[in-house]
């Protein structure tokens, strides 16, 4: 008899489990070596507590999708990420601890899925949160741990796209774009619709300013994409990324792809944002960023930064390009990018 399990979930049998365990062990060892202590939190939390994170729009991946009512009538949710539960944990259990606080986790998270896309309802995440270390030092440390983690599992060819969630909003303010147009422009940027982005930008400003904004939004590549910025407003808005790069060693820097148009769709990011890509994988295998306002909503205002890696995606990337030659070529390693 074959009995079904919900779509987007799966059983793991010994062969896969053994290999996955190798990935997990490498990550745990690396996080421990870097001084991050592993924590565990309950999979179910009070909705009223997690909602303090202020995650708004329904399309947000970080919004909990599985809800139930407990015996007292309280709404419980299954966590959709670990960043929000750890923000709660730090405020509640580390209230007197001198920052920085370095925590790591290996935990299942639960999300809603779209049918037919191979998405996981239950995903296993491994990551860190560094609380009480601001930009740029804290961000530099998190990126260094991240690149080391990718190397530890054997994915030295993976790359981390780095953007700054504060860059474009600040640039829009500097060029004097109005409140309503600003929201439209940021929406198009977040949904990666460059056609809509150009339409909204041209409607909001003059030709010269529009050309500047579109140029910045399309810039991706190595440190040269920052060096080549000439407009003083764009240089000012990108100073966060420049300061970050100054604090990162060459080895880590060689794994980064700057993307000035990158914003993450999660509402709580305030500064640097990361997306991790592995050769052969069309989807991001991890991500993260700075969330300097989140811990304050839970009662312990501390700047913070973190990232999460999708353990099964790491495993898939390690198994490699088994699905045919038309997958992204693993031998192609980016040698810098360009500005459009």
């Amino acid at each position, binding site marked *: 008899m074959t009995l079904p399990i919900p779509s987007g979930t799966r059983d793991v049998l010994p062969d896969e489990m053994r290999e996955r365990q190798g990935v997990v062990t490498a990550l745990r060892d690396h996080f421990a070596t870097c001084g991050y202590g592993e924590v565990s939190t309950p999979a179910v939390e009070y909705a009223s507590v997690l909602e303090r994170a202020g995650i708004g729009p329904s399309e947000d991946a970080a919004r909990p999708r599985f809800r139930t009512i407990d015996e007292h009538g309280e709404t419980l949710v299954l966590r959709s990420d670990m960043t929000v539960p750890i923000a709660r944990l730090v405020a509640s259990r580390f209230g007197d601890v001198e920052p920085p606080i370095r925590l790591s986790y290996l935990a299942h998270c639960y999300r809603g899925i779209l049918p037919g896309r*191979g998405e996981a309802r239950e995903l296993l995440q491994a990551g860190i949160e560094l609380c009480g270390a601001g930009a740029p030092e804290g961000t530099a440390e998190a990126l260094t741990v991240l690149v080391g983690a990718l190397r530890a599992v054997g994915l030295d060819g993976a790359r981390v796209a780095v953007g700054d969630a504060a860059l474009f909003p600040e640039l829009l303010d500097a060029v004097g774009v109005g409140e309503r147009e600003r929201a439209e422009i940021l929406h198009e940027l977040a949904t990666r619709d460059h056609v809509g982005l150009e339409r909204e930008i041209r409607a909001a400003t003059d030709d010269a300013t529009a050309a500047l904004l579109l140029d910045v939004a399309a810039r991706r590549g190595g440190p040269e994409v920052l060096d080549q910025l000439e407009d003083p407003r764009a240089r000012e808005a990108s100073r966060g990324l420049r300061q970050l790069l100054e604090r990162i060693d060459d080895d880590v820097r060689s794994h980064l792809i700057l993307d000035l148009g990158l914003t993450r769709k999660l509402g709580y990011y305030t500064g640097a944002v990361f997306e991790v890509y592995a050769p052969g994988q*069309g989807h*991001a295998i991890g991500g993260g960023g700075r969330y300097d306002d989140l811990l304050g909503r839970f009662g312990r205002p501390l700047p913070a930064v973190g990232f999460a890696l999708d353990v099964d995606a790491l495993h898939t990337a390690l198994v490699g390009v088994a699905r045919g030659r038309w997958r992204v070529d693993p031998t192609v390693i980016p040698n810098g990018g360009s500005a459009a």
Partner: protein
Amino acid sequence: MNRYGLRIAVPRGTMLGDALDHLDRVGIDTSEVRSNDRKLLFEDAGIVTMRPSDVATYVEAGAADVGITGKDVLMEQRGRDVVELADLGFGPCRIVLASVAGDPDPAVEALRRLGIMRVATKYTGIAGRFFEETGRQVELVKVNGSVELAPLTGLVDAIVDLTATGTTLRENGLVEREEIAFSTARLIVNPAAHRLKAAAVDELRRALLPAAPGA
């Protein structure tokens, strides 16, 4: 592989000719694609061909780096994680609400007297959002082809479908009642390729859009 080193998903059907013309113009030899309409994968040109509605699926998964497909496909499959890089301008068509010609409009009549109208479409996503945004109750009937037949047989009161010239609607005694969206071909890119192959992607975009501002 083509000179850009990018795998390109190209839609078969009405957009194929224009798409191949554009690729020829930027230095990709598409003669083999033109001469063979059964083969799907062309290694030398770095081209894969497929139904327009599948292009976003391949690009999102990274099975192709970039693709060409209609805005209508992207609107219908909203939420696909692809970068919409450029409006290529060709393949214009409109998504319209149409019903049997004559006055009063049978769809309006159904809404007035029955409180709901039945609408047949292949584009349930676009149609669903459109009626929700315009505050009308509808029952969507998903059909897979010859949508024009549905109102003629009494299956539905109206249809939401793609039209380029309006000829098919006219020949079936239907009339356009409202325009829902205007669509042209778009260049889309896998988010990983957009970063990992930034130089090649930007070069292809610039070549395809010689007059693009900001390029």
